[in-house]
């Protein structure tokens, strides 16, 4: 990185212009310098370097050997396992976010009734979010143990059949999905609750005078006013769910037979278990592009709300 990109490229600014720019805005630039350096070293540079590696054959330590063009991408597109994992990642994200949103909304509406005990209930709802994700995953893995785990004890006590949760591919997917929902509901519930509490009480009073029942209240008042909250919360949740490495890695390790692998865990295995850093970098590029779409959507939403609020 000899020169500053974005300044030299495109606008054809000379060195003198850059110097003048820095002199004029010296104080904010210096103040931001530590942040920029850290973000460049740990986020921006590695992303760029990974992109380059995606087009190379690598050795077992990740060093680039030969330029191979789009080979890794072609191989990926042809690989049935990879395609299956892409499909599963989207299914995983959609299902998980759907249930997080649904249960989070229900929990928020219940907590917002302001009946006695709701303050304590709110505190209890937070707990799974406050809990460390890797440790929550360890805990669930223990609960899913088919013989000594307490989930099967609960099931048999309720008269339901005991299951081998993590050995059966379909069940293992459902089981990890359930943990993902479990970890995500608290954030959703809290954001929705904050959104609900921001709706002025007078709106509801006006509705009641007009004779609206709770159903009309919900459809014509609560939901429309909650829409901005809804959009941002589900989008953020989708990104986090798409990225949820820890849950899958700790509970099933992607198994049995890749049945629970999602893109991030599959990439990780490619890099650090199979030591195929080239294909793994190509996957990283794909993941980056998907996340970029999410991010642009987020910026658009943010910008729109900003304008609306102004």
């Amino acid at each position, binding site marked *: 990185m000899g020169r500053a990109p974005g300044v030299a490229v495109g606008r054809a600014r000379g060195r003198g212009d850059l110097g003048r720019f820095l002199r004029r805005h010296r104080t904010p630039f210096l103040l931001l310098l530590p942040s920029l350096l850290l973000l460049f070293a740990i986020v921006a540079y590695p992303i760029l370097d990974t992109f380059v590696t995606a087009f190379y054959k690598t050795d077992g330590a990740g060093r680039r050997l030969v330029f191979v063009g789009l080979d890794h991408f072609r191989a990926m597109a042809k690989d049935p396992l990879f395609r299956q994992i892409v499909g599963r990642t989207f299914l995983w994200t959609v299902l998980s976010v759907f249930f997080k949103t649904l249960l989070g909304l229900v929990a928020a509406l219940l907590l917002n009734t302001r009946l006695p005990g709701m303050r304590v209930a709110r505190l209890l709802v937070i707990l799974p979010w406050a809990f460390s994700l890797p440790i929550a995953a360890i805990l669930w893995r223990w609960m899913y143990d088919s013989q000594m785990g307490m989930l099967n004890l609960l099931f048999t006590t309720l008269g339901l059949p005991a299951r081998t949760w993590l050995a059966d591919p379909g069940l293992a997917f459902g089981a990890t999905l359930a943990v993902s929902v479990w970890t995500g509901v608290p954030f959703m519930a809290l954001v929705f609750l904050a959104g609900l509490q921001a709706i002025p009480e007078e709106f509801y009073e006006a509705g009641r005078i007009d004779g609206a029942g709770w159903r009309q209240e919900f459809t014509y008042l609560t939901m429309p006013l909650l829409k901005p909250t809804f959009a941002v919360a589900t989008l953020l949740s989708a990104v986090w769910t798409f990225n949820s490495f820890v849950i899958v890695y700790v509970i099933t390790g992607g198994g049995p037979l890749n049945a629970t692998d999602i893109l991030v865990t599959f990439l990780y295995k490619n890099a650090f278990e199979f030591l195929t850093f080239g294909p793994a970098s190509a996957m990283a590029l794909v993941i980056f592009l998907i*996340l970029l779409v999410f991010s642009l959507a987020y910026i658009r939403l943010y910008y729109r709300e900003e304008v609306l609020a102004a």
Partner: protein
Amino acid sequence: MRVLRVGSIYVLLGLILFWLLFPFYVMLITSLKSAGEIFTIPPTWLPNAPTLTNYVEVWSSIPLARFFLNSLIIALGAAALTLACAIPGGYALARYRFPGRGIMLYAILVTQMFSPVVVIITLFKVLTAYRLLNTYTALIVTNAAFALAFSLWMLTGFFQAVPQEVEEAARIDGCSTAQIILKVLVPLAAPGVATTVIYTFILAWNEFIFGLTFTSSVRMQPLTVGLASFISRFSVDWNYLMAGSLLATLPVVALFLLVERHLVKGLSAGALK
């Protein structure tokens, strides 16, 4: 009718709470069972002879103290580094108008969405080349970078809320920019600074993927990775693992509850005004 409605609200909430809290019951109960009772099939709802020995023996059965020390150093180091970057950075974004500021703010917002997986291959190569695997430095720097976006965002908001007049008064009294930031703004934005510190601390304490990838020696592993690595063994001492897990998370849960309202607001920026 009303009784019925109130009743159904409590029943529904009760079901959700049961589902959310049942794992914590399992954790607590397991940590109170003896080693022999863990392996009874079917398991028991309550320990036959509740015991606290797991909480004593876990310290010698796994290197828990070492894991605690590692996590503490990494989390404190990351919090300090993030703060050192985010305080001046947040001030610049809050008080100065310069070309690229808007793009920078959006870029910061977007960094929040990136998965560490995208950068981990290169980071691993670089850290290997500089012989920084199995060091605190590697984990402090990476954790700080991933907490920085939210911290900058948070502090920018808090600094903006401090009235400009306060700052001007200090400037007239002859304070330099550095003095204004440290002696005037930071104390006035103390809740924001505290939230940033706690957020980074929790993030680093709970971090997994960097710890997993950048440490191979057990002596350098953070708590999360250290505890998780004990599951891959043939026979897992769940009683110790659950006791250790509870000890590892309770302090962080307490910290979390302190800042949770700020986090909800900060993380859903744009959703709530």
